[in-house]
């Protein structure tokens, strides 16, 4: 599982945004706002990883129980699917 190429994640003015670049920028004029966790998820998902690997990365980085982390990942991925952002 991975996010589409041709998107750029950037911290700017103290927040995280994802914007399309390349041909993508022509077709998709929106921007995605992320919080810090969302930015971490996005960063991880720039490489093709499994949900299990993402969970491991989250548990490694944040002090969070497995159940909460799983739920967060699920809802994040659902949002990506909804917005057609997965490769």
């Amino acid at each position, binding site marked *: 599982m991975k996010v589409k190429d041709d998107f750029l994640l950037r911290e*700017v*003015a103290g*927040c995280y*945004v994802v*914007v399309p*670049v*390349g041909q993508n*920028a022509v077709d998709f*004029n929106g*921007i995605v706002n992320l919080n810090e966790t969302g930015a971490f998820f996005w960063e991880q998902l720039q490489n093709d990883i499994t949900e299990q690997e993402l969970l491991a990365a989250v548990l490694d980085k944040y002090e969070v129980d497995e159940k909460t982390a799983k739920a967060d990942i699920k809802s994040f991925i659902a949002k990506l699917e909804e917005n057609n952002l997965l490769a």
Partner: protein
Amino acid sequence: MFYKLCDFYVKMNPLHNKICSMAEKFLYDGAIPISSECITLEKYTRERLQQYQAMKDYSHLSLEEIEFILLAADFHTKILDFDAVMLHSSAVVHRGECCLFSAPSGFGKSTHTKMWQKLFDAEIINDDSPVIRLIDGKPVVYGSPFSGGTFISEDKASPLKAVVFLERARDNSVTELNNREATKLFLLNTLRPTDPQRVHRLFDTFDTLYRQTKFFRLKCNTDKQAAVLAEKHIYKENDYEG
């Protein structure tokens, strides 16, 4: 031909005379200092403009209008390499500082800034797409000949005071924007480049100017009270300076 646009030396040779005459007051015939950066804009042949005209998005436009749009886009993209960014807005100078009123085209940005002209004797230096440059790290607003349909543009510069995003409403109100809202609205009202390197430059510039600039949302109707309210909010700290 060389032009001095926003204090940049710009080389362009437009095909259409009207573009040349519009840019006339920006013409530069002095010597270009050796150390200075020079921006060279694309040269569009009649054939190339006709190719654009055959495309759906451009089919209702004349070749002259297409050339103008392409040159403007090229300019607004290339300046990103030099700590500068365009914001779709009407730029008005009041008490020696510039406020940018931004909204999608057709909203009535100019209607609002014309009220500032009338009420406060403020000066509109660009009516559609002024450029913000970081000069010694400080944001400064410049007029340029690339100014949408109305061609109100002066060869002038002024320090940036505030950026205000306009929204239509029945009643007037002003709120200060947080970083997320400001970033989002700014990005939606500038020309976003497709080249990742330039996207980074755009973000670098925005980051620096964000830290020194107040961002507001002005919900407004077309009554002059909207301008009175906005002016009061934006310039309020002056009341305390005596």
